[in-house]
C-alpha cells in the first residue's frame, strides 16, 4: 500500500513541477528563465533530432558529448584503479597510512578547480589537464573507502585464509577485495557524480570542446535557453550514470544485498 502511494507520488511530482515551472516562467517572461517547453524544444533541436542510425543524436551532440564523456570515463577509470590500488596499500601495509595521512589530508583539502593553473603548467593544455583535474578530484572517495574497506575485513575470513594457507595473491584477490567491494562501490559511485561535475568545470576553463565548452559558448552568445538545455543535459547524464552504476553494482554485489537481507 505504502509502496503504491510512493509510486504515485513519484510519478506525479515530475509533471506537476514542470507545469508549475512552465506557468511561472510564462507569466514572468524573464529572458533568463525560459519556459521548460522552450528548453525542451531547443534540447531536441540541438541534440536529439539526428538520424535513427545515430540513436537520434545529432552531429553536434556527438561532437559535444563524445569528448566530454570520454574524459569523464577515462578520468573516473584512472582514479578508480589508482584509488583502489593506493587504498589497498594504505589499508594493508601497517604504518603506511599513519605516515602518509597528513600529506593525504592536505591534498584532499585542495579544491581541484584551483589546481587547474598548476596542471596547465605540468601537462599540456587540453585533455591531459582535464583528465588530471578529474582524477585528482575524484580519487579521494575511492581511496578513503577502499582503505576503510580492506581494514574492516572480518578477522574470521582472514584466519580461515591463514589456516588453509592461501597465497598472498588469493588472500587479496579472493578474500580482501571481495569483502571490501561494497565500500569500494560506494566510493566509486560518489566519484562518478563528482567526475561529472569536474568534467564540466575543467571544460569551462581552457578547452575548445565538450559540454562545458558548449555551455560557456551558449552563455557568451546570450543564448540562455541553450544554457538551460545544457543544465538539463547534465542532470539527465547524472541520472543516467547513476542508474547504470546501480545496475552494475546490483550484479557485482548481489551476494552482499542478499546476505544482509537473510541475516
Amino acid at each position, binding site marked *: 500500500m505504502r509502496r503504491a502511494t510512493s509510486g504515485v507520488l513519484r510519478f506525479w511530482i515530475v509533471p506537476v513541477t514542470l507545469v508549475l515551472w512552465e506557468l511561472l516562467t510564462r507569466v514572468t517572461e524573464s529572458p533568463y528563465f525560459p519556459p521548460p517547453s522552450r528548453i525542451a524544444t531547443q534540447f531536441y533541436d540541438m541534440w536529439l533530432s539526428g538520424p535513427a542510425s545515430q540513436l537520434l543524436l545529432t552531429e553536434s551532440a556527438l561532437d559535444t558529448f563524445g569528448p566530454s564523456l570520454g574524459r569523464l570515463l577515462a578520468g573516473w577509470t584512472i582514479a578508480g584503479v589508482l584509488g583502489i590500488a593506493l587504498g589497498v596499500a594504505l589499508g594493508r601495509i601497517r604504518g603506511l597510512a599513519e605516515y602518509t595521512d597528513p600529506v593525504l589530508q592536505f591534498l584532499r583539502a585542495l579544491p581541484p578547480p584551483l589546481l587547474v593553473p598548476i596542471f596547465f603548467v605540468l601537462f599540456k593544455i587540453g585533455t591531459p589537464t582535464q583528465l588530471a583535474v578529474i582524477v585528482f578530484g575524484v580519487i579521494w572517495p575511492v581511496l578513503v573507502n577502499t582503505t576503510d574497506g580492506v581494514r574492516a575485513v*572480518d*578477522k*574470521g*575470513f582472514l*584466519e*580461515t585464509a*591463514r*589456516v*588453509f*594457507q*592461501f*597465497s598472498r595473491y*588469493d588472500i587479496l584477490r*579472493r*578474500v580482501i577485495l*571481495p*569483502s571490501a*567491494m561494497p565500500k569500494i562501490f560506494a566510493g566509486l559511485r560518489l566519484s562518478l557524480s563528482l567526475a561529472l561535475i569536474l568534467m564540466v568545470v575543467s571544460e569551462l576553463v581552457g578547452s575548445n570542446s565538450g559540454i562545458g565548452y558548449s555551455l560557456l559558448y551558449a552563455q557568451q552568445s546570450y543564448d540562455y535557453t541553450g544554457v538551460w538545455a545544457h543544465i538539463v543535459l547534465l542532470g539527465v547524464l547524472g541520472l543516467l550514470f547513476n542508474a547504470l552504476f546501480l545496475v552494475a553494482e546490483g550484479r557485482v554485489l548481489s*551476494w*552482499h544485498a*542478499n*546476505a544482509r537481507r*537473510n*541475516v
Partner: protein
Amino acid sequence: MLELVDLSHTYGSYRAIDRVNLKVAQGEVVCIVGPSGCGKSTLLRSIAGLIKPTGGTVLLDGKPVAGSPENLAVVFQDYSRSLYPWMSALANVGLPLRRRGLDKKRRDAAAMAALEQVGLAGAAAKYPWEMSGGMQQRVSIARALAYQPKLLLMDEPFGSVDAQTREELEDLTLRVCAHHGMTILLITHDVDESVYVGDRVVVLSKAPGTVVGDLPVQLPGPRDQIHTRELEAFVRLRAEVGRLVRGMTPHRNTHGFGVETR
C-alpha cells in the same frame, strides 16, 4: 602425531593456559572439554598457528611448528565468518585446493565429492546465505574434508546450531572422519558431546587451563545417538567428565575406564 609440550599462553597478565601437555596419536579423535574461559580456544588457536603461544612447543610429527602448519584444517564455530558469502558452496570448498596445485576441473571435482559426503551435492551452487546454519557448517566440514588434512581441528563446531542439527553433525563427523582416518581434535564445552564423539576426552581446568583429566572412551561402535547415550558406560563416563569439568575430585572408578589425572 601431535604433541603439546608445556604449552602456555598469557594475554598480558592473564594466564589463559598453563603448561598443557598432550599427545594425540594418528587417527585418534580427541575431545577437549572444559568450563567456559578455560583457554580451550587459545589452545586450538595456538595449534593452528593463529596465535604464537608465549611458552612451550607444538610438535607435529615430531617437528616443532611455527605459523600455520601444513596439512591442517579448522572447522570454526562461527561458520558465517568462515565461509565467504561472495562464493558458492562449491567455490568455498574448492578454494583451499588452489594451493595444492590442482587445476579448476580437478578442484571442482574434489569439492563436489566432499559436498556429496556431507549430503550437500544438490546445494553446490548455493551461496552460504541461502543455507541454514546446519548446512553452512556442513559446507565447512566439506571444505576440511576436501583439503585432506592430517589433523583436523574443530572449535565448538556445533555450538551455533540447534540440538537436532547438532546430533546430525556429530554423527556426520564420526562417520566421515572415520572413513578418512583423520586425526581430530574437537573442542567443546558440552560434556555429553565430548563423550559421544571422542575416542578420548581431555578435561581442562578453569583458567589458567591445564589438563586435569584424560579419559579413554571405550564405547562400542558404531555409535548411535539414542542407544549409545543410554549405555551405562556412557552415563558413568559422562558423570566422571562432568565432575572434572566442575572441578570436583574424580572418582577412582572400578568399571574399566581408567581415570588418569595429573
